[in-house]
């Protein structure tokens, strides 16, 4: 009876900090704590140490209740163990509270490993405190055992090798030399069974996982405080958009089809060539002579040959014709380098060219036949309209 009572009391004690952790999860989730590896590591370390401490305290109690110690010590020990537990619960409780208060601070700068300094130092303090506590517990435990035990001797009067104190604490097992006292009368083909206690750390670990299960399910499915995958995705996308926008505003990278200009710098063109070889050559040929895809080194274009048109074709693709959209893989600068590189190979007459497809495109100014340019640019106009429509529809389907 006493045993069951003890279990219930301690389980209840355990639940309080766990509920605190749950609240803390809620807050941190929304500010992105859970994607922070440092936070996760610290949290796991804190929880693991907590389990160890709880197991230690309960072993302490077991020890106190055994005949192992004299009555005088017993009283001391019991209150000591309870004190430790109480202190710990208090600590964890306050931590969960603090974590809630800490959340708004999370936006400030000067982060440590992606964590705001307050959370970081607080968690570190908790961790160190737990370690300190463990050290004290361990020291006291060892000391008490040392003063109380006399070396055991076996039948021949030689000292028996003692199991380590730590091992005994962790397993709460009857010593090997005393195991006859817990030997069951079972005998299966010579296999006998002992009836040792469940190792305290195992038992408490099991309870903790069960508590975790309830907290987890409540967090995600009853109170709805946890973000399930669809919401989590939306949050991640929003945050990514914010970050990218911020970066783009600061950088010179925001070139698009309306602002693309011809690049003549050899180093940049070489970069464009690298991209071409890596991503385009499979379909358009190593020298742009065409293959599965059309020839890019001639003067005929299916979707317009002006810089903005080529830029757009790369950026959004012509999906129904097998040209994929590259905007997720290539940055705007890369696309503009690539566009200029493609411009630079025009008329290079590579071997094994694919037959021309589409309309002839010549740059304005370079051509004397003005009528051709005119009709071409007209075709371009309708073409780009179509491209915009497709681009929009792509964007919609993405959403």
């Amino acid at each position: 009876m006493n045993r069951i009572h003890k279990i219930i009391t301690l389980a209840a004690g355990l639940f309080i900090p766990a509920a605190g952790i749950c609240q803390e999860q809620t807050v941190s989730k929304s500010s992105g704590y859970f994607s922070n590896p440092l936070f996760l590591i610290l949290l796991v370390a804190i929880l693991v140490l907590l389990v160890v401490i709880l197991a230690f305290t309960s072993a302490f109690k077991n020890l106190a209740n055994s005949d192992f110690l004299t009555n005088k010590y017993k009283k001391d020990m019991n209150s000591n163990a309870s004190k430790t537990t109480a202190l710990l619960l208090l600590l964890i409780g306050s931590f969960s509270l603090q974590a809630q208060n800490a959340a708004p601070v999370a936006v400030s700068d000067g982060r440590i490993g992606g964590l705001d300094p307050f959370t970081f130092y607080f968690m570190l303090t908790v961790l160190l405190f737990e370690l300190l506590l463990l050290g004290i517990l361990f020291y006291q435990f060892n000391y008490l055992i040392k003063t109380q035990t006399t070396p055991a001797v076996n039948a021949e009067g030689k000292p028996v090798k003692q199991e380590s104190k730590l091992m005994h604490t962790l397993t709460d097992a009857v010593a090997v030399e005393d195991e006859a006292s817990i030997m069951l009368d079972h005998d299966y083909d010579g296999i006998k069974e002992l009836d040792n206690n469940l190792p305290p750390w195992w038992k408490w670990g099991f309870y903790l996982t069960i508590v975790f299960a309830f907290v987890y399910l409540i967090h995600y499915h009853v109170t709805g405080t946890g973000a399930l995958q669809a919401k989590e995705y939306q949050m991640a996308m929003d945050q990514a958009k914010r970050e990218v926008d911020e970066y783009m505003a600061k950088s010179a990278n925001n070139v698009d089809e309306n602002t693309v200009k011809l690049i003549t710098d050899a180093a940049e063109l070489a970069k464009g060539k690298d991209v071409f070889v890596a991503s385009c050559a499979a379909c358009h040929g190593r020298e742009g002579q065409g293959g599965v895809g059309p020839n890019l080194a001639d003067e005929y274009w299916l979707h317009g040959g002006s810089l903005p048109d080529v830029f757009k074709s790369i950026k959004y693709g012509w999906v129904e014709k097998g040209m994929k959209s590259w905007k997720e893989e290539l940055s705007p600068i890369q696309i503009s380098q690539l566009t200029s590189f493609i411009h630079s190979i025009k008329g290079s007459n590579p071997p094994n060219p694919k037959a021309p497809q589409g309309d002839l495109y010549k740059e304005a100014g370079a051509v004397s036949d003005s009528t051709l340019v005119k009709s071409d640019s007209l075709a371009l106009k309708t073409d780009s309209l179509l491209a915009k429509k497709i681009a929009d529809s792509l964007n919609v389907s993405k959403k």
Partner: protein
Amino acid sequence: MEIQKFQYDNKIVKWFAYATILWSLVGMVAGLLAAIQLYLPAANLNLPYTTFGRVRPIHTNAIIFAFVGNGIFMGVYYSLQRLLKARMFSDLLSKIHFWGWQLIIVLAAATLVMGITTGKEYAELEWPIDILITLVWVVFGWNMFGTILRRRERHLYVAIWFYIATFVTVAMLHIVNSIEIPVSFWKSYSWYAGVQDALVQWWYGHNAVAFFLTTPYLGLMYYFLPKIAQRPVYSYRLSIIHFWALIFIYIWAGPHHLLYTSTPDWAQSLGVVFSVMLIAPSWGGMINGLLTLRGAWDRVRDNVGLKFIVVAVTAYGMATFEGPMLSLKSVNAISHFTDWTIAHVHVGALGWNGFLTFGILYWLIPRLFQTKLHSEKLANQHFWIGTLGIVLYAVPMYWAGFMQSSMWKDFTPEGQLKWQFMDTVTRMIPFYIARSIGGLLFLIGAIMMTYNLIKTIKAGKFLEIEEDQAPALTKEYHAHSKDHWHRWIERKPVQMLVVSLIVVAIGGVIEFVPTFLVKSNIPTISSVKPYTPLELHGRDIYVREGCYTCHSQMIRPFRSETARYGEYSKAGEFVYDHPFQWGSKRTGPDLAREGGKYPDSWHYNHMLDPTSMSPGSIMPQYPWLLEDQLNATNTMAKIKAMQRLGVPYPEGYEKIALKDMETQANQIAANLKKDGIETLPDREIVALIAYLQRLGKDIKAEGQKAEK
């Protein structure tokens, strides 16, 4: 009290031991071949039969069902007789069981080589073999229960609880997951589709690990470890708690294979929490094993069998701690689809199953042959080379998995994916090479063991007649008043069976019933239409070639995946997928939205030589798809089977299906011709292109409609 004399059947144990050794070598060689193909695709010898997509299922099936399966039966037939003080119930049933199981293995190997597969991982075998498995499994159960009912030992030892749970649960898993509609003798479609199929399949897949690779081996551990160490089992109470907790909780954890997929959120969450709760029950087994060795560690030093078993139990502990960690969503987001999972399962398979089997064999064979092990030194060398093999296998795979996943998720500050998929593949090659060396070392160890055991067998004399005696059980039994309450069920095998079945059935029922009945779990998408007959044929080719062993069809709701592959996958997209093909590993890119990404000619060239279209690719070549004629004779049967499964083809459609097929095939052939590729429209490649070009198209249509 009457003392009865009886003899143990050692012969059946010997046969199962031989089979275990033989299939371990076969399974490992297949594994090595598959591992090498990942950096040397030409190691498939340019034959369809030895290509990765077929070798990989052969490897997994050979290791799980042939090697470990025979290992289970070897250990059970040895320990059961001795724990019950009775000979096996029927020598005939034992024989049928042995030869039946070997027949299944041979049939499995032959069909998988031919590309006959259901396309469901670890349940690839087609329906006639499924039925055979069921029958042989029943024979095993019948034989085991016959023995239990004729026992001379009142109470069942913990090992036997595990054997009973194994028997009922595997029966349940196998039957439920294998429900399929036959199209022909060697072709069937899974009864379930899409999300439901995934849920059932991973309920099965996960619990095949639990009840084929774990519980029977825990039973073996509970017999052989205390037996070899000559120490009492550490804690009876721990046995009880961890047994019941383990079998109850394990069943629920299946959906952790489907985190961040289109499976309903609540099912995923159940998968997470039950996986976490599984740590302690799993570790209960490890603790009970390792602490049984208290005071006997000197024997571990001296006994090579025990050495193997200790490492096995430790590997079990590591794998069962890692498993729940991988089930946490934040970890799974990184690990899933990568080699991390492969590392994880191999710690379990090489460490736990492999080493435990080796340990038992090193102890058992000398006993059966009444002699000493031929060479303790060689066995010790096996131990070290095997351990080194595991480390060399696992460490590169952990590293590779973590690295590849990080690369998949990397963005530039401008918001573009930092790496092409191909970059992440080529980076894997050194790790794949290291892994195959680890695997080779492990295989060399197994060959050393085989040699050692053959020498031992040759030197000894088989103990054919092993006599024992025990008092017969009396009808009346008066329980001691001090007895633990659990003793009751230990003397009631039938109740034990029934209670185990109830305990393991709960999790499955609670997870399946709502998924099947509640409509909101799989919201319908009106634009999702059944496959055309040609696409259906193409899909069957996709299944046949085992494309799912390297390509997923499940875009998870992550920024990095929607940027790379398109909109994340929705449950409603898979309602006509019998079976689902989400895959579990992304050696190649995801294909859920492959349709329309490249022209038909790209796919044609890519199948002929993948490196021509994506330089650096490690995909094997599939030239036979270009040459082989599509077998269209069963088109009608396929359509009819699909109709019976509820796929809404118009009534009588099977009659015009062939014409539709021809039109679509001609269209594709014409497309190819435009790009200068001449092919007959009746080749397999045409059907496969049709299927690949369909993937993910339906939901795109939905998006365009919405815009209008």
